[in-house]
């Protein structure tokens, strides 16, 4: 059994059984992959993301009664996960990450025809400042509107628009620079 399954079993043990658990699982666990991606792109560490999401889901279960609008479950979970990551950063001194090592993709993570484009883009996104990476992720990955991102990040809409614009400009600049440095034949 791998570590993720270990954690799932542990979580099931903590959550227990019953209709509340079934409702929680039906409503929240489908967002587990979203949460993992969200935390990964915040912290750029897969194993840390798994730990944080596991803790976040447990916290979500404990405060499940506070979720008033089931339609808002994903935003609610993202907020819990972000806070859990912040708590983790406060608790421990995290090691410096090697961007190049992180950017090696799993082949099955690639969803478009040219995996090299995706690899380069992933590397570029990893190097974006967090203040640009997070709104871009919320918009492109989760389909949030600008006003939803503003609410999630507690920013003004113009500030979000600026960050999104700058994020894309930074990605374009970086990709152009990298492409310009390549040889002209294979």
């Amino acid at each position, binding site marked *: 059994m791998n570590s993720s399954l270990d954690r799932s079993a542990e979580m099931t043990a903590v959550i227990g059984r019953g209709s509340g658990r079934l409702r929680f699982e039906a409503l929240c666990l489908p967002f587990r992959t979203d949460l993992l991606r969200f935390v990964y792109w915040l912290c750029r560490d897969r194993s840390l993301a798994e730990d944080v999401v596991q803790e976040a889901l447990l916290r979500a279960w404990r405060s499940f009664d506070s979720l008033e609008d089931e339609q808002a479950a994903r935003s609610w979970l993202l907020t819990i996960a972000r806070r859990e990551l912040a708590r983790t950063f406060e608790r421990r001194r995290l090691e410096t990450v090697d961007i190049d090592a992180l950017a090696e993709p*799993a082949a099955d993570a690639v969803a478009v025809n040219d995996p090299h*484009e995706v690899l380069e883009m992933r590397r570029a996104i990893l190097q974006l400042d967090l203040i640009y990476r997070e709104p871009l992720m919320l918009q492109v990955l989760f389909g949030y509107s600008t006003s939803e991102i503003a609410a999630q990040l507690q920013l003004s809409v113009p500030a979000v628009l600026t960050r999104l614009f700058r994020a894309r400009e930074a990605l374009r600049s970086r990709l152009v620079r990298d492409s310009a440095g390549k040889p002209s034949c294979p």
Partner: protein
Amino acid sequence: MNCQEARLQIGADPGSDDPQIAAHIAQCAECARYWQELRDMDRIVSAALRVDFPAARPTARISPRPLWAIAASLLVVLVGALAWFLNPRDTFAAQVIDHVNGEAFSLVRTSQPADAAELEEVLERAGIRLKPDQMLVSYAVRCEFRGHVVPHLVVQTEHGPVTVLVLANETVKSKRIDEDGFEGVVVPAPRGSLVVLGQDGDVQPVAATVLNALDYTMKTW
């Protein structure tokens, strides 16, 4: 909507179905190309963000090779960048106006203040504090400008939004700016200079208000 406004909106949200954007790109080939380029890029961004979990699955290393597709699709950007470098319009005023045009989202009339904590952090990093109840700041971000990270504020005045760049690390000769529909001043500050730029009327009184509202006595980080 002009090309500058269209590109800012497209750059912030290429997937927007704003009818004004649609109308603009229908009659502007350059902006239509930019729009298509960013939509193509967003498709790759989306795929890149979809990192798979769990990580226990075997991974395959992919040998590096050139990214011809990206190179081709972004060639126009390289040409644009070259053109920018060759462009002789590099005066201080032009740099200020280009920078402000790059954040045109901020130039809106509003009574909504910027987030207080964000504003405080933006200014604190330049060793500055805003005195209470002096002016309504609706926008506050840290920007790279002429090699320094500077506070970029928008202050709401009776004549509309006015941009303020706090150049605490650079002293620029005092001058007036009157270009491209912008009117502004560069004035000396307790540290460095202050750029105040508006689009509707004399901003000299605003500059005086801003100078009075900013407290430069904090230590810099």
